[in-house]
């Protein structure tokens, strides 16, 4: 299987999700190491997004173990899991269009999350610096005062990644970050994710094989809710089973 030596930060073992008899995940096992960058590919309906839903508490698995460090994620709700240090970027960029880029980042910034704490929150200079730093990192420093609703598609994807950074998570789940991006934007995003990994673990779900190659990470191939193959991009691209179900189509 994965053959990871150390202590995995994310640990899925024998996870199944059944919706009305349909097995969205089928006995899936996956280990992600501390600081690892991992790409997950697979045809439509392979269970990639369901896997993200299980990790972030949106979907309850029918069977199996899902652990983040020592926490059993199957028993926690979305907000609690997010506060443990798992950040998620959705396939379709979702942010708060009525708020500015700055305000979107400010909401994501790691800080007490209760109503009273939010009511009495005062933006300090170090918080402001962190927000500006993240905006710089994702290339939106010039757009801080614009409403998120007016950003282009690529910029929206980056704002989402910026919001992930503000949460200061240990594990980032990034669902299709380059869908609809130009080649140049795709390159920029790959470089950004490579920079982020190391200090944090990053799991990227993507269709775009050029992008996955640019990430230069270990690749997991999912098919029909189970792991089909795992290894370097060259390894999986030459795996006959992968060629049959995915690349050969």
């Amino acid at each position, binding site marked *: 299987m994965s053959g990871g030596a150390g202590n995995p930060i994310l640990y899925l073992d024998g996870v199944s999700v059944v919706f009305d008899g349909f097995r969205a995940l089928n006995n899936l096992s996956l280990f992600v190491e501390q600081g690892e960058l991992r790409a997950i590919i697979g045809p439509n309906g392979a269970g990639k997004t369901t896997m993200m839903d299980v990790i*972030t508490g*949106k979907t309850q698995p029918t069977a199996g173990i899902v652990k983040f460090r020592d926490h059993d994620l199957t028993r926690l*709700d*979305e*907000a609690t899991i*997010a*506060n443990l240090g798992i*950040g*998620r970027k*959705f396939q379709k960029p*979702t*942010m*708060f*269009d*009525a*708020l500015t880029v700055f*305000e979107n980042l*400010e*909401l*994501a910034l790691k800080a007490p*999350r*209760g*109503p*009273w704490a*939010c*009511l*009495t*929150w005062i*933006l300090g200079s170090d918080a402001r610096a962190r927000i500006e730093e993240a905006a710089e990192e994702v290339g939106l420093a010039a757009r801080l005062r614009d*409403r998120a*609703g007016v950003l282009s598609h690529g910029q929206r994807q980056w704002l989402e990644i910026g*919001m992930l950074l503000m*949460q200061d998570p240990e594990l980032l789940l990034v669902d299709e970050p380059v869908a609809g991006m130009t080649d140049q934007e795709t390159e920029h995003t790959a470089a950004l994710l490579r920079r982020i990994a190391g200090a944090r673990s990053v799991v990227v779900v993507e269709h775009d094989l050029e992008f996955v190659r640019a990430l230069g990470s270990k690749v997991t191939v999912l098919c029909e809710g189970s792991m089909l193959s795992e290894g370097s991009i060259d390894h999986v691209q030459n795996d006959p089973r992968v060629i049959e179900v995915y690349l050969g189509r």
Partner: protein
Amino acid sequence: MSATALPAPAGAARITIRLVLAGIVLVLAALPILNALPESHALHVSDFIVTVGGKWITYAILALAIDLAWGYAGILSLGHGAFFALGGYAMGMHLMRLIGPRGVYGHPVLPDFMVFLGYKELPWYWLGFEFFPYALFMAMFVPGLLALIVGWLAFRSRITGVYFSIITQAMTYALMLAFFRNDMGFGGNNGFTDFKELLGMPLRSANARATLFYASLVLLLISLWLCWRIAESKLGRVLVAIRDAESRVRFLGYDVTQHKLFVFVVSAVIAGLAGALYVPQVGIINPGEFSPGNSIEAVIWVAVGGRGTLLGAILGAFSVNALKTWLTTVAPDLWLFALGGLFVAVTLFLPRGLIGLITKAPGR
């Protein structure tokens, strides 16, 4: 819920809003003073106008409470009239206790309706209402507690949008039916009336009229400040985020239930206080105040004024009630058609409400 972006007013618009607000407050504050002028004076304002003005101010406070929950957090309550009425009943109980032996039956303790219904002693939940601070506290506590319970059950189960609206309609309807019952101990059908005095002032005196009017105005300003303070804080931005993309807020690590509960309870408490000031000014409270139509009408005030703007709620409450007062005199049968038509027209042609007319920010 669709992302109806409400742009923050630009600098010039912000000044316009402040001017409009200052204008409204100055005109209102002048009313009781002009009322004190001799009747022959050209600027004299009748008692009727002061009483109606005070009543409308309490409506404006109710509208403000609805706007805080609906305009910011996207919680469309169609039962806010219930919180208003509960606050009103709390004040009504105090006013009933103050009548003392001056009732028709002359019983030293029991209000007339209890004597009539054969009560031997005051029900336990009436105890303490002879004290004004206690009644005022209950006018906030009871609506707040109801909002906490209903909100907790609904928000925890992630009941949102139209389903939540229907539940709040059912809530106010159920309360109306309950308060209609004589054995509830709240005067049934007839509710409470024939109040004599409040804080030592005979209710029909000019002094009481002016005092209640100014108390309402002060409550309006305090509520506006409180709502504005919430709207301008990070909490306000969390609420807008919940309105536009609730599940995304959860994935950012916010406990959405807590935030919605907070704003819903604050909103209910404000509505309860408004009801407590409404009752001594109109001189009556009965179960009709719980009728679902009242709550819907209050939501229309906010829609007409412009939701998510606070000042819009106040403008809406005043203008729709002005229209109602005029139309129900001229053509009473047309009022409900006019109200419905107004709601449709505002939704179609003026989605940002009246406030959108005065703050028409260019390029937004």
